[in-house]
């Protein structure tokens, strides 16, 4: 009996797929040339990419950096690349970049906006990474290094620029010492008690204001004192009178302090112990400094207003609800430009006669109102996304309205709303370019207009737009990516 049966005991080695089905070719076939329609699309795409690059890359890369005027640039272009060549004139950017960044801020004080900008991230870190020691340490460390480097860099400018301020006001060693000490303190806190860092976030608005505007140190301290009074009154009364009444009383007492006592107290303190920074008026703010000041202050101030409006809109009290809805819908119904023109043309009609203040402050107020309506809607979305059971559970635990909001509802709703808040900020940041229409020096058209008024750069056209557009793109793209990352990170439900 011969054994003719054959049983394979091991698998045949897999054959390599045909050329068309493996490696690069397969990828190309599947992703670029699957079917005639796809092939056409791919070819069209390739042509579009080629034309875009062939047109833009030489223009950008061959740009002229060493010229003093546009005429110089044109001459050098012809010398280097022959008649008819078109290249960028980046020399304008290298001469005027500081105006695009800081507007007319005194050049020897550039360290102040730089430091304020750096500290902004240090203040945001503990909110975004609450209690995470390592992340906070890394972030604040990186911010500290970058800020100090940039402060050093801007110092070189200050040395050549005419001094706008008394020498002591921009004493470099003193300033660097202060910055190093501040960052050191922050890093130490981050290492020892990362949760305590939120205190820095709380005082940052006043610190940032003080750094940018300067003036007597007692002014911001007085304002802080007002908030402290508000807090104390609230804590004392809350147990007996309930949250709303206690908050009302707190605001009342604080308002008395701010409007009545503070000026007297701070003036007295200032004359007794004059301490402060060289005062800078906000009419010199311009460029990206202006964009950030308007964007950041409007968003941060609109958050509390937005939360109140969102709660008001969901309230059972018919009057409160009507007012909130009315406000939100009105603001969302009119274009931002009309708000800006209200700030520049109408606000002075609504304020007591002779009360005049800076256009930038007026714009910030109106933009804050504008942003708060949008933030309110974002937060309302967060509130609505919360399952009904959360509210019911809070009620079942016997929490009252404010306890439920504070402990159960808001932490979850805000978490859901963070991406929305970030995208509101991106929108608002882009919209700050509109302030040029009321005569402020925004980077896009405001500063560009000023640069073009110089006879040397009179007809320059594309370069400032490309430069400013690139920076806007970098900032906004970075933020939108970050918000996507946050969205993923904060997603705690495991669906």
């Amino acid at each position: 009996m011969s054994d003719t049966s054959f049983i394979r005991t091991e698998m045949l080695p897999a054959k390599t797929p045909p050329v068309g089905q493996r490696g690069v070719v397969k990828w190309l076939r599947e992703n670029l040339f699957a079917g005639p329609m796809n092939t056409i699309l791919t070819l069209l795409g390739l042509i579009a990419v080629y034309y875009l690059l062939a047109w833009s890359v030489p223009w950008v890369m061959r740009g002229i950096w060493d010229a003093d005027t546009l005429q110089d640039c044109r001459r050098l272009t012809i010398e280097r690349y022959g008649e008819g060549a078109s290249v960028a004139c980046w020399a304008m950017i290298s001469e005027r970049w500081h105006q695009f960044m800081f507007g007319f801020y005194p050049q020897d004080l550039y360290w102040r906006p730089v430091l304020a900008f750096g500290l902004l991230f240090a203040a945001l870190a503990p909110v975004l990474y609450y209690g995470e020691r390592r992340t906070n340490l890394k972030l604040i460390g990186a911010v500290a290094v970058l800020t100090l480097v940039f402060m050093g860099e801007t110092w070189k400018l200050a040395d050549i620029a005419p001094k706008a301020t008394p020498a002591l006001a921009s004493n470099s060693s003193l300033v660097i010492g202060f910055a190093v000490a501040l960052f050191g303190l922050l890093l130490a806190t981050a290492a020892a008690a990362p949760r305590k860092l939120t205190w820095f976030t709380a005082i940052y608005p006043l610190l940032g204001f003080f750094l940018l505007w300067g003036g007597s140190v007692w002014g911001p301290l007085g304002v802080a004192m007002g908030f402290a009074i508000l807090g104390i009154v609230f804590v004392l009364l809350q147990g007996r009178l309930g949250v709303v009444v206690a908050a009302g009383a707190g605001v009342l007492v604080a308002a008395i302090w701010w409007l009545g006592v503070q000026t007297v107290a701070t003036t007295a303190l200032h004359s007794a112990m004059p301490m402060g920074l060289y005062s800078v008026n906000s009419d010199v703010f311009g460029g990206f400094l202006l964009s950030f000041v308007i964007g950041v202050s409007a968003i941060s101030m609109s958050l509390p207003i937005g939360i109140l409006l969102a709660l008001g809109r969901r309230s059972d009290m018919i009057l409160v609800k009507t007012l909130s809805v009315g406000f939100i819908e009105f603001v969302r119904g009119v274009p931002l430009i009309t708000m800006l023109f209200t700030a520049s043309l109408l606000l002075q009609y609504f304020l007591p006669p002779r009360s005049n203040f800076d256009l930038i402050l007026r714009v910030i107020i109106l933009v804050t109102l504008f942003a708060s309506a949008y933030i309110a809607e974002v937060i309302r979305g967060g509130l609505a996304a919360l399952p009904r059971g959360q509210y019911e559970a809070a009620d079942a635990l016997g929490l009252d309205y404010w306890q439920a909001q504070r402990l159960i509802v808001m932490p979850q709703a805000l978490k859901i709303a963070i991406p929305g808040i970030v995208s509101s900020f991106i929108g608002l940041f882009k919209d700050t370019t509109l302030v040029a229409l009321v005569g402020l020096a925004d980077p896009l058209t405001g500063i560009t207009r000023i640069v073009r008024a110089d006879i040397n750069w009179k007809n320059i056209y594309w370069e400032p737009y490309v430069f400013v557009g690139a920076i806007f793109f970098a900032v906004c793209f970075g933020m939108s990516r970050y918000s996507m990352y946050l969205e993923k990170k904060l997603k705690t439900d495991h669906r």
Partner: protein
Amino acid sequence: MTIAVEPPKAAFRLSMLIYDTRYRAMTIQVIVLALVLLFVGWLTDNTIQNLAAKDKDINFGFLWARAGYDIDQQLIPYTNDSTHGRALFVGLANTLVVAFFACIFATIIGVIAGVLRLSKNWLVARLMTVYVEVFRNIPLLLWIILSFVVLGETRPAPKDFRVTDEMIAAGESPAATMSFFDSVAITNRGSNIPAPKLTTDLGGFELLGVPFSFAVLGTLALIIGSVLVNNRVLAQAKAVQEATGDRPTTWWKSLLILFAPTLLFLWVLGFHLEYPVLKGFNFQGGISVAHSFTALVIALSIYSATYIAESVRAGILAINRGQTEAAYALGIRPGRTMKLIVLPQALRVIIPPLISQYLNITKNTTLGMAISYLDLKGTLGGITLNQTGRELECMLLMMMIYLTLSLLISSLMNIYNNAVKLKER
């Protein structure tokens, strides 16, 4: 039933206004109302004082005064002898027409980009991602200015289109020619497109200064009528399908009903197109479209399309894959799956953000100011305000108009949203 224990009826005390939750809400509302009234009163009082100090009053009489300036794009008749009030309406019409076209184009581009972002073609998907990211992360103002400049700088001047006798003799062709079979002239100062004209004029009437032509009204009525009749036919076909399972062919009926009456009507009236021709300095005839309008429409639509693309993508991704698979399992063809299963569900997700994009487009038309497009902001809130110095009146009027517009659009779109929304129980 158990006997409910009645809480002892306490006599009303003043402190209950704060402590008793039943009254607290009332107390808070009264206080809020008082504060709001106080605030409004304060504002009004300030305004009256300020007006008095400047020796001004609130007076809308300027709307009936001669405007004196020209507007380069007018949808309703206007000359510099017309009133400021009429300039307002010209501006409003300009706002509406930009918003209308921008909404349509943004939707088309947005839907295409959103679908292509999900394309299996790697290059196309990446290109669309780049498009979306680049356009939405750079301020709209920049795009408006850029598209305006590109239109102006890349197109030839009108004189380049000119064909002289010498050129014909020498056999040369002009430096530039008109596009689309010699019907559209895009020069560096604007575009001229063919204008529809009728040889027989039916006359018309004027309402509030806006002329209405019977021919146009008649055409509109015919189109609406045809659509209604067509709907009846389709409904009947559906009824037959539900009763018998077979759907009668309707496409030729639909075509006939939809187009035949209108075409016949237009043919009887002698419909033809008037083509632009080069005369003097410029192209004459046809409809001339200013570049500021074109640029604004282009910039608004490509910018807003990125947002629409994102919501379309999100909408399609939100539909459970199982829906498509189930449809395939039932033997429904892919095209019909998209039409009958996926899209109706995706629309529910897409429409609310679409509404807010339409609102944004309408509000963003004000940015036309940067390229001097004379919309409502340009006429009422720009030149009129400037010439009359009536900032309070102009701004209030303008805000009210924009607010009305926004509320109108959002309510119209909400009606549509309710129509397509899945009916939940």
